[in-house]
C-alpha cells in the first residue's frame, strides 16, 4: 500500500518518462477523439452511417464489396460493409463510441459500487464486514459472461442497449474493486490521522469522506485503469455472442461475429474490427500500467531496463 500520496506533478513527471505509457495514452486519446467526433468525421468523409449503397457490392457474389481491400476509396476511407454497402469508417467509428461508452460506464459503476462496499466493509462492524466480504466473494465468483448472457437475453429490446450492457457488466464486476478498497480502508483506518479525526468528534461519514477516501484514490485508480480494457473485451465478447447492442447500431464485436463468413472474400471486414479491439485494449493497458507505476515507483516494471 502506498505510504505517501504522490503529488499530481510528481505523478505526471514519472508518467512522462515512460515511453510505453505515453504511447498508450496518446493512442487512447485518439480513440476517445474518434468516438467523440464520429459524426463529424463521417460528415467530413462525405458519408453517413445508415445509407445503403447497392452499387458498391456485388450481389451475385453474396454482397461482397466491389474493389480491393473491401472497397476502400477516397469516398470510403475504410471501404464498405458487405451486403449493405454502408460506409465502414462510419460504422467503425460508431463501434468506438459503443466500446468506449460501455467500457467507461461499466468501470464507473464497478468503481462506485466497489468503493462504497469496500468502505462500508472496512469501516463498519465485524458483522457488516463479514457479510459484505462474502458478497464480494460471490461477485468475484460469478461467471460474468454466462450471467451477462442470461441477463441480456431477458431484458426486452426497448431498454437502450449500451446502457444495459454497462449496467450488467458493472453490476457483475465490482468484486475486485471492493476487495482493494476494503484492504486499503482497513490499513488506513488504523492510522493516526484517522484516530485524530475520530477523537475530534467526526462521524463515520465524515471520516470516510475526508480521511479515507483520498487514500483510496491511488490503488483504486490503478485498479480501474486496468479494469477498463477488460471491460472493452467483455463488451466485444458479448456483442460477438449476439447479445450486445442490436443492429443497426454497430459494434466491433458484432462485426466479428460474421468473421467466418467474410474472412475469405473480404478480409478487411474481419481485420479492421479485430485490430481496433486490439489497439484499444493495448493502449489502455499501457496507459494503465503507466499509471500504476507512476503512482508507485517501487512496483516492478515489466519493461524497465535497470534491475
Amino acid at each position: 500500500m502506498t505510504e505517501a500520496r504522490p503529488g499530481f506533478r510528481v505523478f505526471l513527471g514519472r508518467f512522462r518518462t515512460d515511453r510505453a505509457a505515453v504511447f498508450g495514452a496518446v493512442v487512447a486519446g485518439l480513440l476517445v477523439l474518434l468516438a467523440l467526433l464520429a459524426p463529424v468525421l463521417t460528415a467530413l468523409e462525405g458519408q453517413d452511417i445508415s445509407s445503403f449503397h447497392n452499387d458498391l457490392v456485388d450481389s451475385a457474389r453474396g454482397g461482397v464489396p466491389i474493389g480491393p481491400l473491401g472497397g476502400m476509396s477516397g469516398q470510403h476511407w475504410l471501404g464498405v460493409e458487405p451486403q449493405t454497402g454502408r460506409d465502414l469508417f462510419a460504422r467503425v467509428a460508431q463501434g468506438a463510441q459503443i466500446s468506449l461508452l460501455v467500457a467507461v460506464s461499466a468501470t464507473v459503476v464497478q468503481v462506485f459500487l466497489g468503493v462504497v462496499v469496500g468502505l462500508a466493509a472496512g469501516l463498519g462492524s465485524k458483522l457488516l464486514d463479514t457479510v459484505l466480504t462474502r458478497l464480494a466473494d460471490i461477485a468475484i465468483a460469478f461467471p460474468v459472461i454466462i450471467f451477462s448472457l442470461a441477463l441480456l437475453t431477458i431484458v426486452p429490446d426497448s431498454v437502450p442497449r449500451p446502457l444495459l450492457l454497462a449496467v450488467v457488466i458493472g453490476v457483475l464486476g465490482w468484486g475486485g474493486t471492493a476487495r482493494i478498497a476494503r484492504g486499503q480502508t482497513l490499513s488506513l483506518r488504523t492510522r493516526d490521522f484517522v484516530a485524530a479525526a475520530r477523537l475530534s468528534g467526526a462521524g463515520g461519514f465524515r471520516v470516510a469522506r475526508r480521511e479515507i477516501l483520498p487514500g483510496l484514490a491511488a490503488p483504486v485508480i490503478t485498479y480501474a485503469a486496468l479494469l477498463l480494457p477488460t471491460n472493452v473485451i467483455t463488451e466485444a465478447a458479448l456483442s460477438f455472442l449476439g447479445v450486445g447492442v442490436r443492429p443497426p447500431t454497430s459494434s466491433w464485436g458484432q462485426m466479428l461475429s460474421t468473421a467466418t463468413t467474410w474472412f475469405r472474400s473480404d478480409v478487411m471486414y474481419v481485420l479492421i474490427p479485430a485490430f481496433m479491439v486490439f489497439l484499444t485494449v493495448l493502449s489502455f493497458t499501457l496507459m494503465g500500467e503507466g499509471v500504476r507505476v507512476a503512482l508507485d515507483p517501487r512496483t516492478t516494471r515489466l519493461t524497465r531496463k535497470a534491475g
Partner: protein
Amino acid sequence: MLGYAVRRIGGAAAVLLIMSAVVYLLFYLMPANPAQLVCGIKTCTPDRLAVISHSLGLDEPLYLQYWHFLVGLVAGRDISMGPSTVHCAAPCLGYSFQYTEPVLQMILDRLPVSGSLVVGAAVLWLSFGIGIGVLSALRRGRWVDHTVNALVLGGLAVPIFITGLLALMVFCVYLQWIPFPTWVPLDQDPLLWAQNLILPWIVLALTTMPVYVRMSRAGMLETLAEDHIRTARAYGLPERQVIGRHALRGALSPLITLAALDVAAILTSSVLTESVFGLPGIGQLTVQAVRNVDLPVVVGLVLLIGFVIVVCNTIADLLYAAVDKRVSVS
C-alpha cells in the same frame, strides 16, 4: 487448518445456493415463456399451452418451483412426462424443457470436451508460461527479455475469440494446414483427439500465458535477489541446483494459486472458445440453453460452473495457506 477448511466449504455452499436462487429469479422475470417455445407456433392453442406449462411445472409459484428443485438436488424427485413419470435420482438437476433429457446427463456428456480443452491448454500455458518467464528473468535486459515482454503485452491485449478466429482462418481456411477442429473422444482415437484440439489448445495457452510469464519473471527476479540464493551461490552449488531447488519454489507459489483460478476462468470463458471453434462442450450448451430459455439446463450449468469456481478458489486458498507458511489461516 481443519476449521478453516470447513468454514471455506460452508461459505462455498452458501455461494452456490445464492447463485441458483439468482438464476431462478432471473428466469422468472423473463418475458419469453419457455412453455410457449416448447409449444411451437403454428399449432399452439391456449389449452395445449396450459398442459405444457403444467408438465414443465411452470404453473406453480416461483418459490415452490425452486423448493422442488432444491429437494431434488438432495433427495431426487419424480417428474411427469406426459404419459409416464420418471424418477430422477439425486442430485437431480431436472429435465431440460427442450430436450426432455436429464440435465445432469447432458452436462456430463459434454464435460469431456470442455475438460479436454482446459487440461490440454493448462499443460501448455503452465509449462511455456513459467519456462519463458524464468528464461526471461535469467536473461534480464537482453533482447530475449524485451521481445518476451512486448509479446506479453500484446498477448494481454487480444481477447480469446479474436485470436481464435484469426488462428482458425489462417490455419484452416487460408493455409489449410489443419482441418477445422471437431470433437473426437479420447477413448475413441487419442491421436485424432489431440490433432483436433491442438489449435484451440495453442490459442487458449497463448491468451492465458502472458500473466504467467510476467509473474514468474517477477517472482524469479525477486527470489533471485534474496539472501538464501546468494548464500547458496556462495557455497558453490551448481547454478542448476540454485535455480531449480531454491529459486523456483519461492517464485512459483503464487503461480499455483493463480493456476487454480485460471482453470475456473477458462471454464467460464468456454462459452466463447467453444463458439469460435465449434466444439460441443458446456459453453456451447450454455449459449443454446439461454437462447431457448431452457431454465433447468441454465441452472444446472450455473451450478456446475459455480461449483468449479468455488472449488478452485478454495483449493487456491488452501494451497496458498499450506505452501506459504507466512500466511495465517484466520
